[in-house]
């Protein structure tokens, strides 16, 4: 299959792994930002093809994992209302809130629809005028343009029964926070190819200048990831720090200007709480004041009011450390024991981009007693 097979070519993978081994001379710590890359690394065992000098750290790029628990609790509260239909990406449905998840609400009769494209919500709002359609708008820069388009189309159609819980996050502030932390160990980044397809990589040039850390925009297949690592290691060994683009078949420097324009039209930057990490300035998107009537949290403020007090994270869950790259999933004491995909303590165990789910699914825990 085109665009897949050539990037999963065993011979090319071996050639790249050899080139990395021949290039590396010093120990380097590299973070892959995106959870999709984490899954590819664990699924294909790419980290095991690397020389011991290279240590891969899994980054916070799992949109489901970093969505704040308060947003999930709000979605759960709204989905439980009899006149509300909640539209969500499938990935969010199993993520635990304070006390429940969206699949639990669905099982009790909540009207929750898995959407493949946010524009499906537009049709629902038009065909079910007596119901309130609430879209759980999560994701990085990848999904933001589609949600912006939804708002603009809803505005154009004059829909008054559609609103969004906006919990969008942006990658560059997260990289900045990691680099600015006194505990930072990351010396180079594999940036997320899909995010850069939309945003380009101009934003990363500023980060590289400030922190003198190389960044390689990288794709998601084994050949992509190993080539991205090779491009990083070459820079690191040469003492250089630039933004390079491995994923040139999809990404250019400017990105998708049309998509960016949509996002800029509808959203503005704001502080955002990242689950497990904390609040990062300018790391989120919120509706501009002229679109505030599409904000579900405002529209349903009365129904949501008492929920703020109920927010709590499970204390046994170390997903914050995992998301910051400070703990590998299998090093967590709850991993595969008290925390499994069937009984998750935290979001990274259930998301298809979560690091804990990747380790559980593809890599046996070292202790045989760890699993049921």
């Amino acid at each position, binding site marked *: *299959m085109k665009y*897949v097979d050539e990037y*999963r*070519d*065993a011979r090319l*993978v*071996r050639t790249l792994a050899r080139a990395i081994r021949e290039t590396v001379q010093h120990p380097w710590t590299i973070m892959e930002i995106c959870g*999709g890359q984490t899954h590819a690394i*664990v*699924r*294909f*065992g*790419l980290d*095991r*093809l690397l020389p011991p000098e290279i240590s891969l750290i899994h980054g916070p790029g799992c*949109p*489901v994992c970093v969505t704040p628990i308060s947003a999930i609790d709000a979605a759960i509260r709204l989905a439980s209302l009899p006149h509300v239909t909640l539209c969500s*990406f*499938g*990935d*969010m*449905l*199993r993520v635990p809130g304070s006390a429940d998840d969206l*699949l639990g609400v669905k099982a009790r009769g909540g009207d929750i629809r*898995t959407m*493949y494209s946010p524009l499906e919500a537009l049709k629902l709002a038009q065909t079910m005028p007596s119901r309130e359609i609430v879209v759980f708008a*999560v*994701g*990085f820069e*990848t*999904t933001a343009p589609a949600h912006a388009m939804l708002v603009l189309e809803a505005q154009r159609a004059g829909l008054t029964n559609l609103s969004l819980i906006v919990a969008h996050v942006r990658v560059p502030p997260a990289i900045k926070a990691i680099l600015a932390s006194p505990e930072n160990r990351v010396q180079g980044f594999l940036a997320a190819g*899909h995010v850069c397809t939309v945003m380009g990589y101009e934003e990363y040039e500023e980060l590289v200048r400030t922190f003198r850390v190389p960044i390689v925009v990288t794709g998601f297949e*084994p050949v992509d990831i190993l080539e991205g690592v090779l491009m990083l290691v070459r820079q690191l060994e040469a003492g250089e720090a630039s933004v390079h683009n491995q994923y040139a078949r999809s990404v250019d420097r400017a990105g998708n200007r049309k998509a960016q324009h949509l996002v800029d039209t509808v959203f503005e930057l704001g502080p955002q709480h990242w689950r497990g990490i904390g609040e990062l300035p300018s790391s989120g998107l919120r509706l501009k004041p002229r679109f505030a009537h599409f904000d579900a949290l405002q529209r349903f403020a009365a129904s949501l009011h008492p929920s703020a007090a109920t927010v709590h994270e499970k204390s046994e869950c170390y997903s914050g450390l995992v998301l910051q790259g400070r703990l590998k999933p299998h090093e967590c004491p709850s991993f595969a024991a008290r925390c*499994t*995909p*069937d009984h998750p303590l935290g979001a990274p165990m259930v*998301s*298809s*981009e979560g690091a804990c789910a990747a380790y*559980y*699914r*593809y*890599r*046996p*825990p070292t202790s*045989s007693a760890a*699993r049921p």
Partner: protein
Amino acid sequence: MSEPSPCTMHCPVPSPEADTIRLAHGGGGRLTHALTQEVFLPAFENPVLASLHDGALLSLGNGRLAFTTDSYVVQPLCFPGGDIGSLAVHGTVNDLAMCGAQPRALSAGFIIEEGLSKRMLEQIVASMAQAAKAVDIPIVCGDTKVVDHGKGDQLFITTSGIGIVPDGIEIAPSRIRPGDRILLSGDIGRHGIAVLSSRAGLTFAGEIASDSAPLHTIVADVIAHGIDVHCLRDLTRGGLGSALNELAISAAVSMVIDEAHIPVSDAVRGACEILGLDPLYVANEGRCVLFVPPQDSLRALSVLRRHPVSQNAADIGEVHHAPATPHARVILQTIIGTHRIVEFLSGEQLPRIC
């Protein structure tokens, strides 16, 4: 039976000409009788059913009796490559075939939600009858119930089946041995993607047709060629990954499969790549795995490949001794030569965000 005189008082019984199924069609009265006479009996026509006895009396001959039952719930009722009716025949025939049984007779239970169009019911019953005729296995008894609107999902079908396992045939997970080759009867994932794309209107998936098909003929042919089949398992909801995990647990063995040898069509792969699904866990309704001794594997493959339903059969791996750790039951050698585990699917596969 003569037509009763028309009601003179206000009568809740709907008109028999109604084009939708009403509660009264399941009430056990005249409309139930009419539905049986008009829809089911002509479609499933056979002498045993026509006797309209409380039970079917069958002469089955020698051998051990295999007996299975399965319920079918699918939305939409009709999808590319099949419908709930053909599925209900193929699924139960396949369950019998997986025991090494020659299927002999099926029963069919219908739970119909009030409001289903009679035309839709007739279409599904016709498809079911056609599927049963194609495999030459009669539907010899059945039942119909109608539930209130909103209490069902249009139509549920339960089929049970009986078959005869010839003497000397022993096909069971307990016979799986280290060294056995694992054969897969064809490419995986078609049914799941066909249903998903017709449910969600995913036009990018193209017209991927379900693989729904009966497998008893290929099983009988493999056995007829003297191949000592140790175990068979049809791949249904949980896909190949879950089926192998179940068998590895039952047989207390581990298995190593080779990703490069697992056939997946480009259309299914493409849909899975876009949605973030793993074809190993996508549903199938006309595929099975066969465990055969290594010396029989080439012959088994050549027999399988003579049948259109299994023309893409492949040798995908080997059975090994019990795993060192319980979760390393099924190991996949990836396309790039590395190894990973294949776990049970947890819950449903959910499409990813980006």
